[in-house]
């Protein structure tokens, strides 16, 4: 029962979880702070790489800012890689990881992940509107937008995980989806704030409706999945708690937190976590396309649904990104141009709200278990709520609050320059999304599903997820968000 997924999940989420949380805050806030220098006219991040939809590969890459155009695409890509390598190497060194192994593995991870992103920007894959197709001189395209590169990165990772397991194992030091997505979420705080400033009423309404996600995940999903695991499938309490938490709340983090709270052996939530990652991949490959087909006229329902249905922060928020790209593409083809950012912001809001209460729920379960079920000297402590609190959310809130203050509480000049600064930070958010998608793919060993015994865990997951979780999530998203559209581009 040992494989790449389990091993990497182990080092990613168990031993380093707390440290990775704080590291993600540090890196995310650093990127945001560097981007803010542009408010004073000093562009510190304009050299970062961006990719445009292309038909001729030589025109795909370019630095973000015109002031750095002299660098060219190649040097910009190298500079971005070098900056990320240095920043992350220092970070993982602080976590006690082998920096040399990380640097080597990260080089390959970055190369494959970014190559996937570039491949996804090929006009035959990414071009959306007839005007774009005409511009590139092509008769057809998959219309995935350039964010279809996320799917290409995910598929690249899946191929490596399932056909080249030794190579996947060699990469594992740099396969850190939790770290990458948490950094991305911290940076996302700036984009969400800039998006919200334009329509504060809508933004605050979405925020309030995030409360429904908490009720749904913790009180309804969890209870039903726990019952299904215990009663229908005969799992023990030790297995059922992490399983219910993984399926209902927030995948890996919740399985680890609640498993620890009920004093389960570490291997139990780790095994559950690897299953969570596999199913999250399946969801990310299916749900955004279903949302595009059936919910394109209800974009915020789609955004909330992805946040409620897809487990693990990485897959959910990244899935929200794909969903936004696909729905905006479909709407654009129909002549409707939505402002970007609202669908992703809805997904992120729902996910962040759910994450906040992981510690509280773990404490409640821990209290019940240590006082009523497995009575012993090791009682649950209130301090565990803070210990299990996902700290990266603090980084998201700080970046969001500072951005909101800069937009509303300072001079008009600063407010006007803020979207460009947030845009610079957003380039790195996208890169961390790409790294997340690729890493999730590399962790997803589908052979695990065919292993005897593990199939039963997967059966609980399958029955709960596809028989209950995604449909109830859709119903509740519909109840709270139907009829609400993102603002149109003026």
């Amino acid at each position: 029962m040992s494989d790449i997924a389990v091993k990497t999940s182990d080092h990613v989420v168990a031993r380093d979880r707390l440290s990775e949380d704080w590291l993600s805050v540090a890196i995310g806030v650093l990127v945001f702070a560097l981007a803010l220098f542009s408010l004073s006219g000093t562009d510190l991040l304009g050299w970062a790489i961006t990719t445009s939809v292309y038909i001729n590969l030589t025109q795909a890459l370019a630095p973000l800012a015109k002031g750095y155009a002299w660098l060219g695409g190649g040097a910009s890509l190298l500079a971005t890689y070098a900056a990320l390598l240095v920043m992350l190497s220092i970070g993982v060194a602080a976590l006690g990881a082998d920096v040399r192994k990380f640097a080597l593995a990260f080089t390959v991870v970055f190369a494959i992940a970014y190559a996937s992103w570039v491949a996804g920007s090929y006009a035959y894959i990414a071009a959306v509107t007839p005007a774009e197709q005409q511009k590139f001189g092509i008769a057809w395209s998959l219309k995935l937008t350039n964010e279809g590169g996320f799917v290409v990165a995910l598929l690249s990772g899946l191929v490596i995980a399932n056909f080249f397991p030794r190579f996947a194992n060699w990469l594992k030091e740099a396969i850190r989806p939790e770290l990458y997505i948490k950094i991305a979420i911290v940076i996302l705080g700036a984009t969400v704030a800039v998006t919200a400033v334009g329509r504060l009423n809508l933004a605050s309404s979405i925020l309030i409706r995030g409360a429904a996600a908490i009720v749904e995940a913790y009180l309804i999903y969890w209870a039903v999945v726990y019952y299904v695991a215990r009663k229908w499938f005969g799992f023990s309490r030790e297995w059922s708690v992490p399983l219910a938490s993984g399926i209902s709340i927030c995948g890996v983090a919740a399985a680890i937190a609640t498993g620890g709270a009920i004093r389960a052996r570490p291997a139990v939530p780790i095994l559950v976590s690897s299953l969570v990652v596999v199913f999250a991949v399946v969801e990310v490959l299916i749900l955004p396309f279903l949302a595009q087909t059936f919910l394109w006229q209800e974009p915020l329902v789609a955004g909330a649904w992805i946040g409620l249905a897809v487990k693990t922060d990485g897959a959910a928020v990244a899935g929200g990104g794909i969903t936004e790209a696909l729905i905006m593409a479909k709407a654009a083809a129909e002549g409707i141009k939505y402002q970007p950012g609202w669908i992703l912001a809805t997904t992120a809001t729902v996910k962040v709200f759910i994450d906040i209460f992981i510690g509280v729920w773990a404490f409640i379960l821990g209290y019940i278990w240590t006082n009523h079920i497995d009575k012993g000297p090791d009682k649950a402590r209130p301090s565990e709520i803070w210990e299990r609190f996902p700290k990266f959310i603090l980084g998201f809130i700080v970046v969001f609050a500072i951005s909101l203050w800069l937009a509303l509480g300072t001079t008009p000049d600063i407010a006007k320059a803020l979207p460009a600064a947030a845009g610079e930070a957003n380039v790195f958010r996208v890169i961390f999304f790409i790294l997340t998608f690729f890493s999730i793919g590399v962790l997803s060993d589908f052979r695990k599903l065919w292993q005897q015994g593990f199939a039963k865990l997967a059966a609980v997951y399958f029955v709960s997820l596809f028989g209950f979780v995604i449909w109830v999530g859709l119903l509740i998203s519909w109840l709270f968000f139907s009829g609400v559209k993102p603002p149109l581009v003026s």
Partner: protein
Amino acid sequence: MSQSEFECESGNAAEPLLPIEKKLIGWSLGIGVVSLAILVILNHFLPIAV
């Protein structure tokens, strides 16, 4: 944890639902459904401001 241990532990658990577990499930679902109903009603009277 070996394959056989995993199968044995996860697949053949003979742990009946305790009253405290039934309470946890029942109260969670009860509070959840009532809370959702309240939120739906609030949502109806305080629609999203576009």
